[in-house]
Structures are given as structure tokens and as C-alpha cells.
């Protein structure tokens, strides 16, 4: 078994309204910054023991699918490193 570090990034699907990002954008503009677009995402870092990088990816993808993301509104990416 090898220790892997996985990074899961969860973001709203394109087309799903993101009021928090819109509010953040407005607050930055109030500070004088000029912004074309702003989106936000949640990032999870997970250390996991697995037999292979593929096995680690599979387990972390299941975690994202079942809990970290809500497939109705979210897309997610999984990256695994040794």
C-alpha cells in the first residue's frame, strides 16, 4: 500500500447561479478592482493509502460522488499524487 494525496475540486455546474461568487465579485469591484468574471470552488485534500494510483482515484471519486459534491448542481475534478 502506498500513501497518496488526492485533491478534489467541487464547483457549481456552468449555468447554475452562484450568488456568493456574484457578491464576492461586487465586493472586489467596490474595492476598485476590475473583474470580468469570478467563480468559486471548494477544494478538499485527502490522504489515502491505496494499492495503486488508479485505486486511490477510484476511492476518492466515490467520495466526491457520494458526499463531497451534489451531482444535481456540482461538477468535480479529482487529482491524485504520490
Amino acid at each position, binding site marked *: 500500500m502506498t500513501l497518496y494525496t488526492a485533491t478534489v475540486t467541487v464547483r457549481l455546474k456552468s449555468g*447554475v*447561479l*452562484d*450568488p*456568493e461568487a*456574484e*457578491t464576492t465579485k461586487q465586493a472586489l469591484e467596490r474595492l476598485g478592482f476590475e473583474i470580468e468574471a469570478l467563480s468559486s470552488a471548494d477544494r478538499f485534500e485527502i490522504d489515502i493509502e491505496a494499492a495503486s494510483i488508479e485505486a486511490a482515484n477510484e476511492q476518492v471519486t466515490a467520495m466526491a460522488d*457520494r*458526499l*463531497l459534491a*451534489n451531482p*444535481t*448542481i456540482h461538477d468535480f475534478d479529482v487529482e491524485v499524487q504520490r
Partner: protein
Amino acid sequence: MTVAIVQFGGSNCDRDALRALSHLGIDAKLTWHEHSLPRDVSGIVIPGGFSYGDYLRAGAMAAHSPIMAEVRDHAASGVPVLGVCNGAQVGCESGLTPGAFTTNSSAQFQCESVYLRVENADTPWTTAYDVGEVIEIPIAHGEGRFEIPASECTTLSDQNRILFRYCSEDGEITEAANPNGSRDNIAGMIGNQSNIAVLMPHPERATLSYLGRSTDGQGILQALGK
């Protein structure tokens, strides 16, 4: 025969629900989520609040609490299950009902009285009303915007599973009457069986006459006593 009101850490409408049900003469008791449901459970309420501090997403953690397996089993066997506010978020997160409740389009917590139009009066939750009737019930949420892919929303509508839509006082479904940006003004729906329902507005806060101007929520809760 008792209605179980499931308490999670952070639930805060559990006792309101208990008092409202007692007022209606419905036997109910609080059940801590780490315990089992009562053997004689005849109905289940997943109450409002902030279960697990709304960590990750509202309702996401509670949806995977062990008691939810029991809730699902009872729901499948026909026991009435009502999710209110945070309970509605738990319902969607656990797959009892479709879609998801997420951040209000205003990005603000909204606590106000709203009007709802009854869309389907042929469910246990709405027999007290007529289709098109306008009822007044309060909301109190930051994550009540109902999101669902357009095709699934059409299916929901075609299957007549929408219970209530946010509307104006005279029953018009308008953007102005939609407090949180919910798709098609949807405020509540049934699951794939009519004994399972979720809604963001709080019927338990519109049951006791001395609490406010409306007792329109009584009809919804009465389904738990049948």
C-alpha cells in the same frame, strides 16, 4: 402510534414541530439521530435548523446519518415523511426527493411570510386545500433556492409532484413572488411516493393561532395524524 421528530445536532425547529403536532392532537416525540426510530412510528418529521452546522452543504451530513437508512425504509413502506426547511435539504441530499436546495439568489438569509399556491390537492399533505388555493406560511432560510435540471423539472411537473409554488397574494406565479430564485417558483414537492414530502416553508410556524397571522400550515401537518 407516534410521530418521530428526528433531532440532529443543530436542529432547531424540532420542538416547534412537537408543539404544533401536539396542538393538532397528534402524538409525537423527539428522536435523537443516533437512536432508532420508535417501533410504533406512524410518521416522521425531519425538522428545520442547521444540522451539522450546515457544514459542506445544508443537509449533506445529516443525509448520511445512520437514522436516515431507517427513515428510507419506513418511507418505502408508506409511512408519511415530512422534511421542513433543513429537513427538505436533508430530503434532497438523501435522494428521498429530487433536486437540490442551494444558496438563495439574494445571497441572504431570508425570514419572512410568503404566499404559496397549492398545485396538487390530491396528496396526503394537501387534502385540506383546493388546487389554486393560496396559503400563507413563513420561510426562514439561506439555502432555499430549488435547483434541478430543466428536463427533470418538466418530469416533476408532468408527474404532478409539485405541492406548492411561491406566488403573489392573489395566486400569480411571478418572479417578484419568488423569494429565493427557486426554479419555477417551486417551494415543495413529493418524492416518488406521495407519502414523502419536503418543503422549505415552515408549516409548524403557521399552526398555532397565537404565534402569528396564519394557521394555514395545519393542513400539511395533519397528514401525519392520518
